[in-house]
């Protein structure tokens, strides 16, 4: 997962109180991390995807994603919130507090898309989702998400 996910892409204990605040935060961080050229473009892309259907999943995890030409290289940003959100629909009715965001360039390399896909797939394992909830430090999250990059 070199490049795709670094320690700088992990944000813990963030005080954000709505889906919109999270998407804006993600977009601005993506620009600061030089993942995207223009935060407003990915912000729009994140929102457009949410309009199609919510990216809330299970056990408080949401996986927003932006496929956009402003993205320079495929990346994952992880946020763990201080509190839980009420306005992000999930399919098990849990409230979102963990956000795994995927940013993908248009015409991205297949290899990277494959990594993102495998990564998403690994989260259908309930035990893994619960382990993610217990990760409390940047190192724990980093190690978990990197090791997790193997199909389970």
């Amino acid at each position: 997962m070199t490049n795709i996910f670094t320690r700088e892409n992990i944000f813990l204990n963030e005080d954000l109180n709505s889906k919109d605040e999270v998407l804006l935060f993600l977009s601005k961080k993506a620009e600061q991390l030089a993942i995207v050229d223009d935060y407003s473009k990915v912000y729009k892309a994140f929102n457009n995807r949410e309009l199609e259907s919510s990216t809330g999943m299970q056990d408080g995890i949401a996986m927003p994603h932006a496929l956009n030409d402003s993205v320079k290289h495929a990346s994952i940003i992880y946020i763990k919130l201080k509190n839980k959100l009420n306005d992000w629909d999930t399919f098990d009715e849990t409230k979102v507090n963990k956000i795994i965001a995927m940013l993908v360039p248009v015409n991205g390399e297949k290899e990277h898309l494959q990594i993102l896909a495998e990564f998403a797939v690994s989260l259908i394992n309930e035990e893994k989702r619960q382990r993610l909830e217990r990760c409390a430090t940047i190192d724990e999250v980093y190690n978990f998400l990197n090791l997790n990059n193997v199909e389970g």
Partner: protein
Amino acid sequence: MDFVAITSCPAGLAHTPMAAKALENAAKELGLEAKIEQQGAMGLKNEITLDEAKSAKFLLIGSDQKIEKMGRFEGKPVLRVDINMCIKKPKLVIEKCTKAVDAKLREQ
């Protein structure tokens, strides 16, 4: 082949492979032979051949998107299911679809 399935979502990044894997695992657990195709960001993955399509009892579509190459499945019962349900309750989805198709076949 007990059934074939296709998963697809708006961006084809996360839900498509997740639902495919969930259905694959569930089919295995249920002792069913199945092939799951993904129509996602990487194009068609694990594409269902014409022979496989013909041998399958039914086609399960986990998607509300437009599905490519539907010609393969002419004459097959097609069941559309919400992709989130395929991730959340894959076993239940397969069992319900199988029952519905069996009931339909008995009617004929």
